[in-house]
C-alpha cells in the first residue's frame, strides 16, 4: 500500500467516524448528574446495610430451623395430617362386612419369636385373645402413621382381650429397631420377622395388618395403611365374639 492510498484511507475512516459527532450542540446537565451520582452513592451504602440485615436474617432462619423439628419429622406430621383429613372425608367403610365370617376363616400361620426383652411371643399361646398382627419396618412412612393408632387400640382394648404384635421386617433387625423402640413408647411386643413368615401372611408391601380371632384364625388381612375407624370397628366386632362362639 503506497503512502497516498494510506492517507486516503485514513481520511476515509476519519470521515466516517466524524458522522458520530452530534449534529447539534448538547450540554449535559452537570448538576442533575451530580445529584444522581449522590443518590446512587447513598443507595449503594444502604445496599450494604441491606446485606447486613439479610445475613442476620439468614442466621435467625438457621437457628429457627435448628430449633424446629427436623424435616423428616415435619414430613411425617404432614403425612399424618393428610391421612387423617383423607380418612375423615371418606365415608367410613362398612367394617363388619369386611371381616370374614367365622366359618370361612383359616388358621393363622403360627410363629414363635422373641421380643426386645428376650421373651417368647407365640401366636398359639394367645388363644382366647384377639390378636392384631402388624408387619412394619422402621423406614416405612405409612407404618409410622398407623403405629400410634395400634398403641391406642392396645391401651383401650387390652382389658377386653386385644393383643397387638408388631413384626418388624427390617433387614438389619434389632440394629434398627432397638433405637426406634427407645424413641417411641410402644406398649405392645415387637418382634423381628422373617421372609418366610411374611409370605405365609401374604406380605407383599409394607405395611400389612392381620386380625386374628380368639380361636387363632385369620379374620381379616389388610395390606397397606389401615383405616383407623374401620379397624377399630373390626376389633370391636372380634372382641364381641366369645371364645366359645368361635369354637362352635
Amino acid at each position, binding site marked *: 500500500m503506497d503512502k497516498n492510498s*494510506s492517507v486516503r*484511507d*485514513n481520511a*476515509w*475512516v*476519519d470521515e*466516517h*467516524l*466524524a*458522522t*458520530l*459527532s*452530534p*449534529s447539534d450542540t*448538547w*450540554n*449535559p*446537565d*452537570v448538576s*442533575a*448528574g*451530580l445529584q*444522581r*451520582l449522590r443518590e*446512587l*452513592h447513598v443507595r*449503594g451504602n444502604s445496599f450494604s446495610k441491606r446485606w447486613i440485615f439479610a445475613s442476620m436474617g439468614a442466621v435467625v432462619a438457621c437457628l429457627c430451623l435448628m430449633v424446629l423439628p427436623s424435616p423428616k419429622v415435619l414430613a411425617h406430621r404432614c403425612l399424618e395430617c393428610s391421612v387423617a383429613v383423607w380418612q375423615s372425608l371418606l365415608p367410613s367403610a362398612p367394617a363388619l362386612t369386611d371381616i370374614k365370617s367365622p366359618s370361612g376363616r383359616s388358621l393363622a400361620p403360627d410363629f414363635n419369636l422373641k421380643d426386645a426383652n428376650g421373651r417368647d411371643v407365640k401366636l398359639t399361646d394367645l388363644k382366647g385373645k384377639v390378636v392384631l398382627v402388624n408387619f412394619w419396618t422402621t423406614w416405612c412412612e405409612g407404618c409410622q402413621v398407623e403405629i400410634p393408632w395400634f398403641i391406642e387400640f392396645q391401651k383401650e382394648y387390652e382389658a377386653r382381650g386385644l393383643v397387638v404384635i408388631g413384626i418388624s421386617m427390617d433387614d438389619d433387625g434389632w440394629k434398627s429397631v432397638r433405637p426406634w423402640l427407645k424413641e417411641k413408647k410402644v406398649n405392645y411386643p415387637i418382634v423381628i420377622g422373617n421372609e418366610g413368615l411374611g409370605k405365609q401372611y401374604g406380605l407383599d408391601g409394607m405395611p400389612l395388618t392381620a386380625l386374628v380371632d380368639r380361636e387363632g384364625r385369620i379374620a381379616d388381612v389388610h395390606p397397606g395403611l389401615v383405616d383407623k375407624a374401620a379397624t377399630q370397628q373390626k376389633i370391636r366386632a372380634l372382641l364381641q365374639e366369645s371364645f366359645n362362639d368361635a369354637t362352635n
Partner: protein
Amino acid sequence: MLFRAHYERVAQIIARVVRDRARSEDIAVEVFLKLWRNYKAQGQNVEGWLYRVAVRAALDELRRQARRGHYERMVAWVCARPTPATPEDIHSVSQKQEKVRSVLSALEPRQAQFLLLRSHDFTYQEVASILNLNPASIGTLVSRAQESFRKEYIKRYGQE
C-alpha cells in the same frame, strides 16, 4: 472538582455511540460512581482512567443494544408485528451513523476505544495516556485500527 470538569465531556463521548442521550448521561454517572468507589483509580492519571472506563462502558452499551436489537428483530419476526419507530429512531438521522456504530461494536474493543477517542478530538498523546499505551507505538495502532475499521465496514456495507 473532577465531576464538574469532566462530566460533560464524558457524557458527550458516550453519546457518540449511545443514541439515547438520557442513557448516555446515566452511563456517565455510573462511570463516576465507579471512580468514587474505586480507590485505586483515584491515583495518578485519574482522567485517563475516567475516559478509558467511559469509552469501554459506551462500547459495552453499544454491543448490548445491538444484541437487544437482534432479539427484538427475532421477536418481531415471530410475532410478525411491526414495532413502532420511537422518536429517537426518527431523529437519529443518518443511517451512516448507525453503520459506523455497528462496525465499532463489532471491532476488537481496544481498537474501537481507540477510534472513538480519536474521533472525539483527543490528540494522539492524550489517547496514548488514556489507554496506557506507549506513545511510540501509537502510529502503528492508528493504522491498524483504521484498517480493521475499513475492512469491517466494507465487509458489511460495501465501499461507500
